[in-house]
């Protein structure tokens, strides 16, 4: 028996395909894609008329919080959130407790992700660049790579010492391991808790200047240029940051970067009356930043979109703004926010939208994902999106433990309706019983 996703708009950036047709899945593999897919008696057929059929989405940046912080998220709830959000691969950041700096923890993560209770999507662990994520001693990256990490990162604790970062790049170049860099000069951010700007001045809140991000991006770009190590800059937020990356690419540095939905959708004004759901790092910036970040998505300076899913327990965010932790839950709103704020407004074409949510992240991390080509992925990874569905995002009804969403209550246009990863795993707001992951 085959599963046929019938008569949808097939968007596969890996082959520049944008046609109306069908996708056939058999034995957990994509076996046929196109406008002449045959249908047999007994096939399970999903009518995808008016829907998009895309490669399973790839999120480069999520915090699944396990081990050590399961009050915020677990691999089970985080992967369920990923599947519900349309992702079939989710990269997991290493700033757990303890930090993801040894191979046993990588094994633990794979075990948890393979549990039948988990969301059934692939978890791609990102190792800690330095032991304990402390920014001093480089981790045993070769052992971590053997264990299965797809990149190494200083996420959550940006490396301040430029020489440590330089050496880390040399190690990673040798190991053929991309670096994902959290770019922040913490001396400049200090104890700031939102963008340094007109809002922070009005609210009497300590600000984080844009230069804190830009200085660090510039440093990492130059180190990448000098060492030749591929560096992926995590979630740029300012027009200056975009400009730094543009220059670095012009100079030939092997750098890429992503942006998170909140940074191309919202500004510092959203903080309103000290609303903790709008606290993140880098902070929400200003209108000109949103405009130029969108432009950079359009011209390719920004390579892709990542959720920066950072869930927290409710009690952790029911605090005064300056005491709250940085970050927003994002896995279940990222696609809708992208469609609503970019695609529907003509910033990105449907094909470009999928490229930035799936194909490019897979290419940057060299994953067997981000494509519908038969046999190109270990199992079928397909996401079906209704681009026109109008709905209201309700953070209280999400799979993630983190309800700290800046999009809570927002009107959205576009929704993930089906996520296949091997077998069918997510449809109509719930998980099927027969899913299997090979």
């Amino acid at each position, binding site marked *: 028996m085959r599963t046929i996703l019938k008569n949808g708009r097939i968007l596969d950036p890996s082959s520049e395909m944008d046609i109306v047709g069908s996708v056939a899945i058999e034995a957990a593999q994509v076996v046929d894609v196109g406008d002449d897919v045959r249908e047999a008696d007994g096939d399970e057929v999903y009518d995808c008329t008016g829907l998009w059929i895309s490669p399973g989405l790839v999120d480069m940046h999520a915090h699944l919080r396990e081990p050590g912080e399961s009050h915020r998220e677990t691999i089970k709830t985080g992967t369920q959130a990923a599947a519900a959000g349309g992702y079939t691969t989710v990269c997991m950041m290493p700033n757990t407790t303890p930090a993801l700096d040894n191979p046993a923890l990588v094994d633990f993560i794979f075990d948890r992700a393979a549990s039948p209770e988990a969301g059934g999507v692939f978890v791609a662990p990102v190792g800690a660049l330095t032991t304990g994520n402390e920014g001093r001693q480089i981790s045993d990256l070769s052992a971590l790579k053997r264990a299965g990490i797809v990149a190494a990162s200083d996420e959550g604790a940006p490396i301040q010492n430029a020489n440590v970062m330089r050496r880390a790049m040399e190690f990673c170049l040798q190991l053929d391991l991309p670096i994902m860099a959290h770019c922040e000069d913490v001396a400049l951010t200090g104890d700031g808790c939102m963008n340094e700007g007109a809002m922070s*001045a009005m609210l*009497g809140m300590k*600000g984080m200047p844009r230069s804190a991000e830009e200085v660090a991006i510039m440093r990492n770009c130059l180190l990448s240029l000098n060492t030749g190590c591929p560096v992926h800059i995590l979630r740029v937020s300012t027009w200056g940051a975009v400009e730094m990356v543009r220059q670095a690419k012009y100079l030939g540095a092997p750098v890429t970067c992503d942006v998170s939905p909140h940074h191309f959708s919202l500004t510092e004004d959203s903080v309103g009356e000290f609303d903790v759901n709008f606290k993140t790092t880098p902070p929400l910036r200003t209108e000109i930043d949103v405009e130029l970040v969108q432009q950079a998505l359009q011209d390719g300076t920004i390579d892709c979109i990542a959720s920066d899913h950072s869930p927290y327990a409710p009690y952790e965010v029911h605090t*005064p703004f300056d005491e709250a932790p940085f970050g927003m839950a994002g896995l279940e709103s990222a696609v809708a926010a992208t469609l609503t704020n970019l695609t529907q407004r003509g910033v990105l074409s449907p094909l470009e939208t999928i490229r930035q949510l799936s194909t490019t992240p897979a290419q940057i991390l060299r994953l067997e994902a981000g494509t519908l080509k038969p046999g190109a992925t270990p199992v079928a990874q397909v996401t079906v999106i209704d681009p026109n569905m109008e709905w209201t995002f309700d953070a209280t009804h999400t799979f993630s433990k983190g309800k700290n969403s800046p999009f809570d209550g927002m009107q959205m246009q576009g929704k993930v309706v089906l996520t296949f990863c091997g077998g069918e795993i997510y449809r109509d707001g719930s998980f099927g019983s027969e899913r299997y992951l090979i």
Partner: protein
Amino acid sequence: MSKNLLAIRHLEEKQIAEILNIAAEFKETVTGGGSIAHGRSRTVGLLFFENSTRTRVAFEQATHYLNFNIVNFSGTGSSMSKGETLKDTILTLRHERIDGLVMRHKSSGAPVLAAQYFDGPVVNAGDGQHEHPTQAIGDALTILERKGDIQGLRVAIVGDVEHSRVARSNAWLLHKLGAEVRFVGPRTLMPSHTGKLPGTVYYDLATGIADSDVVMCLRLQKERMSDGLLSSVAEYARMYQINRSTLRYADPEAIVMHPGPLNRGIELDDAVADGEMSCVTDQLTNGVFAKTAALEWVFREEMAEVTL
């Protein structure tokens, strides 16, 4: 919804005038030997998560005038030090049947959060670097007594604007009542973006206070030095001190204000602090009536309903 006094920024001109009228009325009654005590009492929690003797005393005095009861709660020596969240502290007080809260907190916006979990009036007694509404009301009363009107006045707020809740509350109040507000101070102590604050920025004292009717000094916290925001206190005094010599730039009839505690010899010199242009002692007295009026204002409607 209970009536709160969380920020002057939130108020309409009319509401500010209401509170100012109550304050002036109360001052006249009390200083004339009369009573403003309510027949029926309310219990107000004084929540000082950050130390402040002066503001606490002024609020205690205000509650005495109104015949309100108070319960004291301080951040240290309470469950806050045992790790209780602000939310739970507020819910506790709510269910212990406290009627209203007066709150001082080191975090900007903390009273806004408290008001979400409390079901009676909340009065902000200073939150982080955000606002200190009753200070501004007392200061406005002082200006009204000395100048007769606020409309059209030039007011220069001098000093550490960036870190000052007094500056923000005063700027909003004076702006809403029609004064021209100027922020004067060094770049390191001035917000880098003032587009959402009601005032014009001056880095030079002489031009900043030129022809001003009111010169309002802000307290300089010594820790700004260790933050690298000042090279020395002496340098600050040289550039921004209000004294007989610098006051020449202001209007000859200008008054000088300071929220206290004074750093004599730094923000202003003895001659000005003790001179006839100084309003420092009036500010203290009016601060009490401002706080009395604030409590009256937030409780007034609700208490009227009860007596009906």
